[in-house]
């Protein structure tokens, strides 16, 4: 899960990485008061999780408490890239001289934490990596050894800073790494890490992503995850489905992530548009299948529901039962296309045909059929 900037900055403070003074405002009044406290000027930053907040108008500078009030009034409650702005980080303005880049990320192919740094911060690091990879230093940390001073020196050596600044940067790297490990981060990023007019290193922005699988160790964040989901996502999560909303009109249910994606791909290949990704996982019982099918059948965007199950642990008869039950309640004006094969296939097909549904043996045929059905609706 991605943390809000203010949460990330709280963690930074906890790990002795000093951030510019700030407060969190949920009302224009609070924005005004915080700005007052900060000396009369501030930068207001919309607390949203989507990327590209700045370009979308989510960052504003206030020259006075009153202006902070006005700007906060404008920003709060609006949507940035579809995400509602509920709060603003109201921060002291940093007089930026130079911008550096620093991040720690899990490197999937090496299987280790990778520290990335660059003298050129503030910009999109992926762009920089593509254009001028030589401007980025990258150091891997063996997870059995942890971060050692020599790793840190290899980074600070490459960045043009005074000895004093290098020491500060070393501390920031060490502390960021501790945070990264302690909080099971996938990413901990400071971009930009500003050098201000007085030569001090100041993290202007902060981005932290925590591994969802580790949230059982971080209950304080685990609870918040649910608050960010759409109603459909929330209901899917409650039943243990993997669910992703897409923008087409053919609902997709599969067992297994790869098979479900492949089903989506086939729909596209044959000219259709998937409405979602829904993986019921392995060994789902009839009730679970019913929940999954019901969820999509009552989804306004879904016109046809394509179910693709290859029974291994999952039993075809259970799947069939669940589908038939869902159809009874929600099937009025929706079409169902089923591909069913594998464990207890005969019994499953019998249950379906008793309910007037015929099942395909091949997923290619089923996908073609679903696409054809949408076209005639």
């Amino acid at each position: 899960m991605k943390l809000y900037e203010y949460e990330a900055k709280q963690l930074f403070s906890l790990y002795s990485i000093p951030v510019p003074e700030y407060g969190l405002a949920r009302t224009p009044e609070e924005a005004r008061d915080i700005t007052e406290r900060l000396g009369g000027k501030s930068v207001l930053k919309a607390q949203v999780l989507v990327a590209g907040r700045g370009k979308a108008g989510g960052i504003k500078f206030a020259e006075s408490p009153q202006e902070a009030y006005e700007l906060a009034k404008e920003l709060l409650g609006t949507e940035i890239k579809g995400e509602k702005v509920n709060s603003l980080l109201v921060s002291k303005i940093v007089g930026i001289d130079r911008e550096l880049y620093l991040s720690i990320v899990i490197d999937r192919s090496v299987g280790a934490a990778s520290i990335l740094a660059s003298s050129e911060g503030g910009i999109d690091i992926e762009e920089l990596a593509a254009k001028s990879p030589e401007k980025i230093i990258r150091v891997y940390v063996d997870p059995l050894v942890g971060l050692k001073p020599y790793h840190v020196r290899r980074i600070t050596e490459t960045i043009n800073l005074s000895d004093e600044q290098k020491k500060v940067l070393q501390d920031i790297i060490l502390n960021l790494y501790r945070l990264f490990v302690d909080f099971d981060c996938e990413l901990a990023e400071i971009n930009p890490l500003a050098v201000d007019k007085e030569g001090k290193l100041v993290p202007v922005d902060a981005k932290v992503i925590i591994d969802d699988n580790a949230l059982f160790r971080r209950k304080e964040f685990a609870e918040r995850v649910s608050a960010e989901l759409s109603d459909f996502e929330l209901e899917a999560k409650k039943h243990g489905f993997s669910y992703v909303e897409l923008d087409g009109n053919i609902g997709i249910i599969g067992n297994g992530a790869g098979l479900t994606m492949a089903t989506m791909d086939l729909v596209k290949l044959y000219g259709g548009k998937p409405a979602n990704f829904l993986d019921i996982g392995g060994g789902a019982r009839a009730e679970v299948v019913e929940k999954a099918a019901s969820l999509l059948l009552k989804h306004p965007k879904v016109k046809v529901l394509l179910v693709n199950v290859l029974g291994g642990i999952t039993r075809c008869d259970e799947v069939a039962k669940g589908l038939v039950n869902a159809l009874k309640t929600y099937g009025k004006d929706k079409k169902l296309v089923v591909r069913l094969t594998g464990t207890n296939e005969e019994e499953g097909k019998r249950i379906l045909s008793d309910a007037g549904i015929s099942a395909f043996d091949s997923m290619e045929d089923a996908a073609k059929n679903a696409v054809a059905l949408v076209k005639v609706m």
Partner: protein
Amino acid sequence: MTVLVDKNTHVVVQGITGREGSFHTKAMLDYGTKVVAGVTPGKGGQSVYGVPVYDSVYEAVSKHPEINTSIIFVPSPYAPDAVYEAIEAGIDVIVLITEHIPVHDSMRFIRYAKLRGVSIIGPNCPGIISPGESKVGIMPGHVFSKGKVGIVSRSGTLTYEIAYAITKAGLGQSTAVGIGGDPITGMNMIDMLERFREDDETEAIVLIGEIGGDMEERAAEYIRRINYEKPVVAFVAGRTAPPGKRMGHAGAIISMGTGDAESKIRALEASGVKVASTPVEVAKLLKDVLKG
């Protein structure tokens, strides 16, 4: 010869008394896999489908020195401990079925296993099967048949789908391995390509990839660099997956500008790998390359 598991594979099931553990112990026994012991701390002395249960892997291995492979069904918070226990007890191949293990944990035990010379398949994987010899995993055995195609896949059911297509095409598999859907896995595609390369029984390889990371790109680069001798056919799932969203698997996400299906397909094709658009096409392409 097959890859990683064969007739000589003797299995201990860690977490054997759990729902999944006992269910798949039966399924593996039915398939003919030599499951010789199980472990659940505190349940030593029981038995599951005739398989004796011990309190520790150490004890299981002492009593059954022929054990060389472990399959782990332990829930994610306890799974790393189970892995370290297996490594310390001298297990050679660990099949780690468990899903939802924190990546910082798997990073550590995978690194450790590598340094100790232990092969980990998984986490979050269906396991490995050498049809007719041994199945150490949760896949339905009947969709596989003995043959000459090696399969390495990041997926579960999609592997069964494609294996089934291969079986129906009359080709069969030497060994099929699901390396797991997590961002970091013990074995990667190159590891398996290297093993299939040296395996006499394998004449062609199927790579089943999906969005996320750059494992397929690296496999493509490897195939090109060493001029891989055996024909490779691929399928990549997730052409329609949007960036920034996790598609079921922890590792199936397009992020930081990498991991989309198109770039994987491009890389594979540039290395001479035939990439199929549908599961059925995989079998068709295999027939072509095996003829040629």
